[in-house]
Structures are given as structure tokens and as C-alpha cells.
């Protein structure tokens, strides 16, 4: 492995990579052609484009260093053909109903919001070096106490504050065990999840019994944008979005800026990568990690508040239903970067929204579409993203010298 052998090979693969992505793009176009607003009613152009993408993909795949990308592009090209056929087989009206983009975006955002909050929390915690499997439980705490607070104080604001406090408190338990007592963080996070399911379920029954939460609770309001409401696509997509969705979207650049553009963010990342080195230069490893884990719990809980008091207006047993884990997946998918995680959360959200709408095509097959977001993610992670590297010290307890 001498450098003289490695160097000449560098030029060609870069070109192949671009070619691979171009093929993947072609595959996407092959399908998009048959969707509104273009809505081509014959599958022929899509078949040609799909085959072309597959061909280019195969060529790229012959380069050993881009085998995965090539194979993925070729696969996408081949998938695009039946997809396009499926669209052209349906009536134009049906396709229009399903692919009403503004509605897809609006409902995609509601699916994505809890994931955005959860993923941002996960990123902060893991960047400081503490794995947070407990996001699910912290989110669930936000769900219950968000509703409970809104009920007893008759204002959603108190609900949100109480929800965040409860999530933060549960995060503190995780922090104490994983930082102070040097517990296995995965184990402690799992415990916190179980605790949250039991605790919220217990309180829910003790407080509300069989009747469930009252139907008329003060909910987190939607933001009605005055001008945008009348613009064609944007009005339906963003005109009446929930306040917490905006907060979540706003937090993404804020967290990114904090992590990568402030001194405190740099210190946090240093502690997550090399705690010993960070400690040597005088940073407070334990204290920073406590703050990071608590903040992550507060964020996840805010996602929970959105779920219960923003979207549903009620609480039910274990209502997070695995969303905390999906948020965790978004963290890994997004490579521990807020914008990456946002992309992952939006991918989940939009494909979930689409999956539910695709049930218009076929009630039976519609259920199968619900598996689509997860299958897409699996393929994307395996084919295009590959390895993502967590912060070096995440999951490892820090022992003070």
C-alpha cells in the first residue's frame, strides 16, 4: 500500500461517484414524471429513463470502490419502472388525490415533528458522550405531563413547561446512573423507557380512570400565517402549521449553530470525543454531560408535548409507540448532525404521510405501504450512507482521574 499506487486511482472514482448519483437522480425523475404536476400518462419515457439509470448503475458498479452506489442506483432504476407503471395504471384523478403535494407536506410535518425534537435531543446527548436510548421514555413523559398540565392549569403553556420538566427529570435519572454511577448507558436507557411506560400508565389510570383524558383541553395552537395562507401551494402546506412544528424546525439551525459555531458547542463535542483530553485542558466533563443529557430529555419531552397536546389533544398508554426509537434512528441516519437528522426525520415523515395516502389506490396493499418508510430508510442507510461514526466516547463512562 504505497502512495504511488493509491494516487492515480483517485481521479476516476470521483467521476464514477458523480455518475452514480446522476443515475440515482435519473431513476427518481423516471418516477416523478408520472406524478403531478407533470403527470405523464404513458409509462414509456419512464421505462426508458429507468433502464438508462439501471445501465449507468451497472457501469458504475463495475468500479470496485463504488460497487454499492452503483448497485443502489441500478436498483432504484429498476424500482422506478413498476412505480411509474402503477401510476399510469391509475386514473389521473386518483393519482392527483394521493399526490396532493401540499397535503403530503402538511401531514408529513406532523409526522416529522416529534422525531425532530427527539433527534435533536439525541444528538446533544450523544455528542457529549452519553448514549440516550431513553428518548422514547422521555418523550412519553412529555406526552402525559403535557396533557396533565394543560388540564390542571387550563393553559397549554403550563402543560408544555410541566412536560419538559418531567422529561428533564427522567433524563436526570438517566444522567445520574450513566454519568455518576457509570452504568451501562444502553441498560440505563432501557430501564428509563420501562419506567416511563409504567409511571405514565399508572398516573393516567389513577388520575383519569377508564374515561381517558377530557376531550376539551387547551391545545398548542396552530400558527395561521396571514399572507402565505393565500399562496397556492404554501398556503395548504405551511399556512396552518402547529406552533411546536415551527419551534422544532427553528431549533435545527440553532442546535447546529450551537454545536459547530460556539465555544460551548466545541467543548461539548470535545468531551464526547476525547473526555480525557478535554478534562486535561480544564473542561468539566461530568457537569457538561449532565446538562447535555437533561437538555436532551427536555427536547424529547417537547416532542411528546406536541404529540399529545399539539396533535392529538389526548393521552393514551405508551402513545409514543416507538417514535423515540425512530428519532434515535434519525440521529444515526443523520450522522449526529442536526441538519442530517432533520433530513432523516422529514424522509420518515413524508414517506409515512405518502404511505397513508397511498391507501386510496388499494385498501389491502395500503397496509404494505406503511412499511415503506422503514424499508426506504434501511435501503438508504445500507446503500448510500454506509457507515456513520458516532462520537468516539459515546457510551463510555468517564472516570475522573
Amino acid at each position: 500500500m504505497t502512495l504511488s499506487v493509491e494516487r492515480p486511482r483517485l481521479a476516476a472514482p470521483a467521476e464514477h461517484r458523480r455518475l452514480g448519483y446522476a443515475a440515482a437522480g435519473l431513476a427518481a425523475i423516471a418516477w416523478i414524471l408520472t406524478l403531478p404536476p407533470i403527470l405523464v400518462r404513458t409509462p414509456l419515457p419512464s421505462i426508458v429513463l429507468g433502464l438508462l439509470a439501471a445501465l449507468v448503475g451497472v457501469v458504475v458498479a463495475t468500479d470496485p470502490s463504488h460497487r454499492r452506489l452503483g448497485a443502489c442506483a441500478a436498483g432504484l432504476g429498476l424500482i422506478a419502472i413498476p412505480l411509474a407503471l402503477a401510476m399510469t395504471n391509475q386514473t389521473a384523478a386518483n393519482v392527483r388525490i394521493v399526490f396532493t403535494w401540499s397535503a403530503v407536506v402538511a401531514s408529513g410535518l406532523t409526522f416529522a415533528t416529534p422525531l425532530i425534537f427527539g433527534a435533536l435531543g439525541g444528538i446533544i446527548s450523544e455528542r457529549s458522550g452519553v448514549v440516550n436510548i431513553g428518548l422514547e421514555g422521555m418523550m412519553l413523559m412529555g406526552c402525559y405531563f403535557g396533557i396533565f398540565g394543560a388540564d390542571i392549569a387550563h393553559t397549554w403553556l403550563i402543560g408544555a413547561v410541566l412536560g419538559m420538566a418531567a422529561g428533564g427529570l427522567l433524563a436526570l435519572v438517566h444522567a445520574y446512573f450513566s454519568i455518576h454511577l457509570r452504568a451501562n448507558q444502553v441498560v440505563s436507557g432501557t430501564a428509563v423507557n420501562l419506567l416511563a411506560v409504567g409511571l405514565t400508565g399508572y398516573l393516567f389510570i389513577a388520575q383519569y380512570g377508564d374515561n381517558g383524558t377530557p376531550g376539551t383541553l387547551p391545545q398548542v395552537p396552530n400558527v395561521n400565517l396571514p399572507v402565505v395562507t393565500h399562496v397556492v401551494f404554501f398556503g395548504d402546506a405551511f399556512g396552518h402549521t402547529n406552533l411546536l412544528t415551527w419551534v422544532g424546525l427553528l431549533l435545527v439551525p440553532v442546535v447546529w449553530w450551537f454545536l459547530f459555531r460556539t465555544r460551548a458547542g466545541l467543548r461539548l463535542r470535545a468531551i464526547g470525543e476525547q473526555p480525557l483530553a478535554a478534562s486535561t485542558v480544564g473542561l468539566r466533563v461530568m457537569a457538561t454531560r449532565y446538562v447535555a443529557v437533561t437538555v436532551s430529555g427536555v427536547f424529547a419531552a417537547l416532542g411528546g408535548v406536541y404529540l399529545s397536546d399539539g396533535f392529538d389533544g389526548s393521552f393514551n398508554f405508551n402513545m409514543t409507540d416507538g417514535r423515540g426509537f425512530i428519532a434515535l434512528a434519525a440521529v444515526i441516519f443523520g450522522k449526529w448532525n442536526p441538519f442530517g437528522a432533520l433530513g432523516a426525520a422529514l424522509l420518515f415523515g413524508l414517506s409515512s404521510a405518502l404511505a397513508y395516502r397511498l391507501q386510496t389506490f388499494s385498501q389491502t396493499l395500503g397496509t404494505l405501504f406503511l412499511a415503506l418508510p422503514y424499508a426506504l430508510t434501511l435501503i438508504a442507510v445500507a446503500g448510500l450512507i454506509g457507515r456513520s461514526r458516532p462520537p468516539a466516547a459515546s457510551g463510555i463512562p468517564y472516570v475522573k482521574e
Partner: protein
Amino acid sequence: MRSRTRIARAGRGLLIPLVTVVLAFIAGGFVVLFTGHDPFSTYGAIFDGTGLNWLFPWVTGTARTTAAFNLQQTLVAATPLILTGLSVAFAFRVGLFNIGAQGQYTVGGVMAVWIGSIFPNMNPVLHIVLAIAAAALMGAAWAAIAGWLRAVVGTHEVLSTIMLNWIAIWVATYLFQAGGPLQSTTEAGNPVSNTIVPSAHLPVIWGNPLLQGLSIGIFISLAAAVAFWAIMNRSTLGYEIRAVGHSPDAARGAGISVARSYAVTMAICGVFAGLAAATDVLGWEFQISTGDLTISQVGFLGIAVALLGRNTAIGTVAAALLFGALETGTSVRALNSNVFNPELASQLTLIIEGLVVLLVSTDLIAVRILGLPAKLGLGRPRAGTALDRGVPDEAATAAAVTEGLEGKLEQGV
């Protein structure tokens, strides 16, 4: 000398979980107390609900009949928990976190109910073996996807198993829903599978076969635990798995294929989870409804079982028995509702389970309460590198990162 050390270690290995459980029960008792109930009578009623009072000779008459029934339910509940616990524990030993036991259990159940219902006149022994094998293989195949992705592509198994869980649930829902390909042929409109035929029923060894008696599934679980122990401690594969779990880099240096260990381990995990589904479907469930798919938490509880059992075979069996007993003792059917609301009690079970897992996550009890030296490593499950990253050039990356950070730190601080 050596044997005495081993006995002492085994004693502590037993003592710490016991103290943990007792502490969790005390904490749970306070929850009961604060919500205005009597913890002692509550725990008494839960104990009776588990059926463990069957072991007392002075319990006679109808009380004994009820106790026997409850104890059967405890063992029925423990059967799949042992297997999903083993599934999670096996992965932990190689340093992988198998959140996917639930999905492997789901696909295993689909196979078991399908094979169990399509051959009406088969030899019972053959039919049962075939259905169990199909469930185990399907579970293995499903888990192997995650293992293969981790080994070849490097996809984090936490991510892939979460995705595979959901894919399994939705695909199974599609199969059994009204109009789905595997929906019941006799109950049109109901989102349920076909009922498995009598030749595929596991023989019931204790209790009434019509009232969820205890089937031979419990022996399948126990045999699996023995197999777990034998593979882990008495085979080359187990040695490699433990080596990789301890340090992937060192194992690689010693010539062990880490990728192969990951893939094989996950497939074996899937066998355990698939067997869990087989014992449920062929033992008492006989039919799967789409509602069962999302309500079932057996795979997730397996995580807690494995952690309480410290990822050992015997520990997992004991932890599954405890969790199975708690689940049964607080169920609506077994708990005396005059003493304590069973719905509250089921939630109390989750709280106690959570506390137990929280307390076993650290050396807390060993060090602070029992005064044992911290270095025993008993308080911590043998996971070591549960969320290990397995990047080949890890050291180089870390070094580069350190250099970069130090440069920035000098500028920034």
C-alpha cells in the same frame, strides 16, 4: 481454592440480583403507598395471583385449583420471555444490541401460524417439528439481514433492527388483515389468521388444554437455554463470540473474523426469537390477530430480561420467570380486584421492571450497599461494547479527531 472462589462469585452473582429485586419491590411499594393503597396486601394479592402459593402445602381446595391455574399462566408467560431474553443476551455477548427480537418474533409467528394451519392431516410430531423449524428459520433469516448489514456494509444494528421490527409488523398486518393473503378462510372480515390445526398443537403437560394449560413449550425454552450455555462456553464459535464482544480489535488481531461473528450471532438470535413465537402460537395462541402484532411486547421485554439475567443462560431463565410471574400476578384475570385495581397493578409491574433494570445497570448495589469491591464487574452486564462502532480504522480516526480538536481547542479556549 479455585472452586471456593467460583462458589463465592456465584453467590455474589445471585445475591446482587436478589437485592436488586427486593429494592425495586420496596420502591414499587412506595408508589402504591403514595397513591393511597396498602403495599403489603397489594403484594400479597399479586403473589397469590402468580400462583406461587401452589407450592405451599397448606393451600387446599378451590384455592389450590386457582393457584395451579395461575402458576400455569406464569410459566406460559415465562416461556417466550426466556427465549426472547436469550435472543437479546446472545447478541449482547458479541457486543451487538438486538432491539429486533420483536420483529424476529413477529415473522416467526407468521411462519408458525401458516405452517401450523395449512396441513390438516399431518403426523403431529412431524407437523410440530416442521412448524417450529419454519418459525426458527424465518426468525434467523430476518435477524440475519441486520447481521449481514452490520458485517458487510457496517450499518448500525440498532438502526437496522428497529426498521426491521416495523417492516415485520406492517407486513404481518398486511397478511392477516381483511382481504390479506393469509387471512382466515373461515372468518371473513375478521383481521385474523387461520387457526392452527390440532396436529400442530404442542402437547399440554399441566392443566386443561382448552384453558391455556402449560405446554411442552417450556421445555423448548429450557433446552434453548442449555444450548445457549453450550454454544457460549463449550464451543469455538462461543469463544470467538466472547472474544469479539470483549474487544473486536483484539479478536481481529487474533485472526477471528469479526464480520462472520456478527452475522452468525444475529442469525442465532433470530432462532431464539423465532422459537419464542413458535411456543406461543403452537402452545396456546393458535391464531394471530392484527391487534396482537402491535400489542405484543415480548421482544422488548426480552431486553429487560436479558439485562437482569446478566446475559447468561441461567440468569435469563430466572429473570424470565420473575417477569412472567409479575405479568401474571398483576393480570386482570389473576389479581383480586377487591384488593388492588389490576389495571394499576399492570403498570406497577412495568415500574418495578424498570427499577430492576435501572439498578442492575451499575455496580451501585455491589459497591455501595453490599460493600463489595467495584472491580468484580458483576454489577454490570457482560456487554462491554454494546454500542461498539466497529470501524476498522477506528484508532486512526480517533487520532485524527484528537489532533483536529486539540488544534481547535488551542484557538478556542
